[in-house]
């Protein structure tokens, strides 16, 4: 039983990792520079921190294999967006960045087991 859960969570971890890779490629292709990936602190983790040369872009990536439990973007709740805002402040102070414009994005990836991934980019959402 335990192995089943581990297998499952292992699969989900890989899916999340693949989704983040895809999102990072998407944003780099759009001309951004990745500053941090999976930046961790005791309060949590930021998936992607980038810059387009003028402002900081904090991006949360959600990947799912289907729409059965709602779209990936729907799972970014108000509480989660609050947490990401707090983490962004921590990132800024950890990197000794002064005042700058910050944009919060969400990238939703739907990646079916067999088929092409579908990426949706929500810009400046909270």
């Amino acid at each position, binding site marked *: 039983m335990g192995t089943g859960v581990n297998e499952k969570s292992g699969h989900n971890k890989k899916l999340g990792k693949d989704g983040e890779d895809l999102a990072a490629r998407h944003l780099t292709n759009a001309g951004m520079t990745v500053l941090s990936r999976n930046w961790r602190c005791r309060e949590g983790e930021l998936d992607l921190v980038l810059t387009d040369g003028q402002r900081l872009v904090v991006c949360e990536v959600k990947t799912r294999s289907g729409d059965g439990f709602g*779209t990936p*973007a*729907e799972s*970014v709740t108000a509480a989660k*967006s609050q947490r990401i805002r707090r983490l962004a402040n921590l990132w800024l102070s950890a990197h000794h960045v002064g005042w700058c414009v910050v944009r919060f994005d*969400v990238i939703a990836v739907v990646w079916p087991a067999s088929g092409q991934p579908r990426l*949706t980019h*929500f*810009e*400046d*959402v*909270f």
Partner: protein
Amino acid sequence: MALARAWSVALFGVDGVAVEIEADIGPGLPGVQIVGLPDAALHEAKDRVRAAVRNSDEGWPPTHVTLALSPAALPKGGSGYDLALACGVLAAADAVPAEPLRCTVLIGELSLDGRLRPVRGVLPGLLAARKAGLRRAIVPVDTLAEAVLVDGLEVLGAGALGEVLGWLRGEPDVLRLPPETTAPPVPTGPDLADVLGQPEARWALEVAAAGGHHLLLTGPPGTGKTMLAQRLCGLLPPLRMDEALEVTAIHSVAGALSADAPLIAAPPFVAPHHSTSVPALIGGGSGVAKPGAVSKAHRGVLFIDEACDWGPHRLDALRTALEEGEVRLARRDAAVRYPARFQLVLAANPCPCAPARDTDCSCSPNARRRYLARLSGPLLDRVDLRVRMRPITAMAASDGARPEGSSEVRQRVCRARERAVQRWATHGWTSNAEVPGPALRREFRLSPRALGLLDRGLDTGAVTARGADRCLRLAWTLSDLAGEERPDADHVACALDFRDRRAA
């Protein structure tokens, strides 16, 4: 197009306001926000509507949806906006054309599978929509018969959200047309012929029916007080169309209409139990007050059986409604006004022990006095007709001639009412009971000879000034029943006799 509009209605009592619903699909994470002071039921609408849209094989917009209900400062509640919200969102998402929504009012609650459920208050809602200039209405198919009572609107019925969307896309014959209007069935109430004896009480009932006066029946149990009261509605003429719509609108807000024959064409008879609360009697409830028994009895009869068991608190709550013909109820969200022009019929035993013959009474004089004193003076002052019923002495007495039935009496009542309506027509009153006191004392002043007895009553304190006005109204009814031009001294004396305190 990221913005679309649809129309619905908000109800405050029996008055409605057209509500414009704007749906905006903007950038942002998926989510729905409703603005415009929604209550809990309307807040839940976003979950109901989204599920209904998905289960009707339509896509919900993958970004942020803002729904605004204007006028924004008006508190709104209930589930009747669901259909308009769903259509607004889908039109904003370009899933359906927005053009047909422009002059269409949409009313109905959605279930999660996309079926359209009936809501309360469709009739008053559509009256408001018509006033706001909307030309078409889509309502749940169960309320179609009620909606079609509003003329001047094209009314369509829908069973599910999918049908409405099909109609918006121009598919023919998806929505149901209203059924052919059939004449409301003639009400077959109990007949007056069933009541044994009681000539005075029958006469009082006839006078009450002819003038719309309030009536008190006292007497030993089992003499037919309740039977007589139940037969009063059968003596009244059917409601005029405007009255019927008023009554139907109140019952629609109360959610008490039948689906197949919603129009209330006969005067309603409402008989609340004596344990009923004040809010149930005059109207109340949180948010926006709902109509009570007095408003449900509008243009009909409110029967208070065992009036002495009601307690002064609740009976006296009736007084303002009796005097003004409406109740105004202020609650958190709105102050609403419900019409309550009813005819009050009180029935009471003469004492707590109430034997068949009054001489067998075992109550102390004090107990008797206290019992009837539960009917307060100010309330009784508003009751024009007070009758003491006599015990039935012989069953055999009624063998020969059949007592007069309801239809014969109704003919006389209708003739008398006709005379009254013609007389007051230029002033807009429809029965003698509605005529204000000053008009009776000035424009329709009786001769000094006819008023002599009344003046003496006022002088000795036997009647109050309001009582004198009520006496004049009763005298007019008596003269109408007699087919005479104006009341004379005899009619005034008879009216005074009906107010005789000995009956209560």
